[in-house]
């Protein structure tokens, strides 16, 4: 190719590149992502009985129990027109104190329920920081409609607003038969407060 030909080819190539930039910018601009989409969370998924880790804490769901009536430590009972779900978890911070600012369950239709504030749940306040290497056993309490109870996924994150944060997602195992049986049982299920379980060395953070 002659020098003139190379210059023409170079000019055409440059124009093509500029056109590609303009077109791709337009395409990206047309995506019109919503704020929630642009700031969406990062998820890490696990299952009951195994430890799941985020950048700040480890968590294990031990079991999930349905109840028609729950009671707090003072004996005060709480009724519901739906069903109570009690999720027994163990949590431990990784290398810095941390808190659980967001605890929710989501059903297979995308509906989300935050942990109930009808009962005192100290773990979900800033007043109960998790410390590195010190696992805490706790029960998270949710109040959900009965038709949602068997298709729920637990969601936990460090911040109250989980956008752009790591969110743990763990499907919960609550058979419909257990929900039916729980609703027929008038005896309240007592919600235990969180407690340190220092003797438990079966967690990923127990040895640095």
């Amino acid at each position, binding site marked *: 190719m002659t*020098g003139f030909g190379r210059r023409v080819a170079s000019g055409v190539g440059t124009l093509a590149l500029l056109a590609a930039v303009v077109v791709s910018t337009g395409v990206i601009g047309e995506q019109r992502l919503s704020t929630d989409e642009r700031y969406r969370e990062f998820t890490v998924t696990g299952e009951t009985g195994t430890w799941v880790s985020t950048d700040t804490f480890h968590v294990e769901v031990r079991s999930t129990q349905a109840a028609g009536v729950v009671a707090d430590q003072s004996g005060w009972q709480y009724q519901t027109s739906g069903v109570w779900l009690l999720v027994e978890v163990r949590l431990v911070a990784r*290398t810095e104190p941390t808190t659980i600012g967001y605890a929710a369950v989501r059903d297979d239709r995308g509906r989300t329920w935050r942990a109930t504030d009808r009962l005192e749940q100290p773990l979900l306040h800033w007043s109960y920081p998790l410390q590195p290497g010190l696992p805490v056993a706790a029960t998270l309490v949710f109040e959900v409609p009965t038709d949602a109870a068997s298709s729920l996924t637990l969601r936990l994150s460090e911040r109250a607003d989980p956008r752009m944060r790591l969110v743990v997602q763990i499907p919960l195992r609550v058979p419909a038969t257990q929900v039916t049986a729980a609703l027929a049982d008038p005896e309240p299920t007592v919600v235990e407060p969180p407690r*340190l379980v220092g*003797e438990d060395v079966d967690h990923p953070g*127990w040895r640095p």
Partner: protein
Amino acid sequence: MAAVSTRGGWWRRNRWALLALLPVLAAMVLVSPEQPHQVWRSAQPREPVAATADGWVRYAGARLRLRHVHPADLRDPVTGREVSLPAGVRAWQVTVEVEWLVEPYQALPGCQWWLVDQYGRRYGADAYEVRGAQLGVDGPTYWASECLPEERDTVGDVGLLHAVFLVPAEARPEVIQVTLRDRLPRYVRFDVAESTRA
């Protein structure tokens, strides 16, 4: 017409522009009105305040010196019995001398205490389980490590501040930090010597 060299291609032809990009990007970070470097720098305790030869550290409106770090004697304030902790959990009490250089309630308001162990793990004071415990048989009731003075303290008085930490039994206190959010990245750092660790 002289032949145009194509060796090196696009990279060779644009090398000066590419090199110029580096200082331009650096300048963009430095002069940005969002001050990303300052935001990053002040997000964590990064600059320990130097202590004098006798161990005193001047920080905010006070002078501080580490007195000792020892296993905490936590008591039930009603029964006087020892507070039992789960196996594998240990409580440490940190005591710091403080001299108030300004009005005591304005010296270190909202301070936070941290204990760093030999593995670099950082613990916060004021675990849920130790609040309301009595420090020793005749000691004060402990609520939080807030750097608050005694009620009658005035400028120039010297007092004691306490913090209690719960840590795994295998954790050894190596460093104590005191931070004030509006003073970051500067913070107080006490290296825990054997002489101060009982």
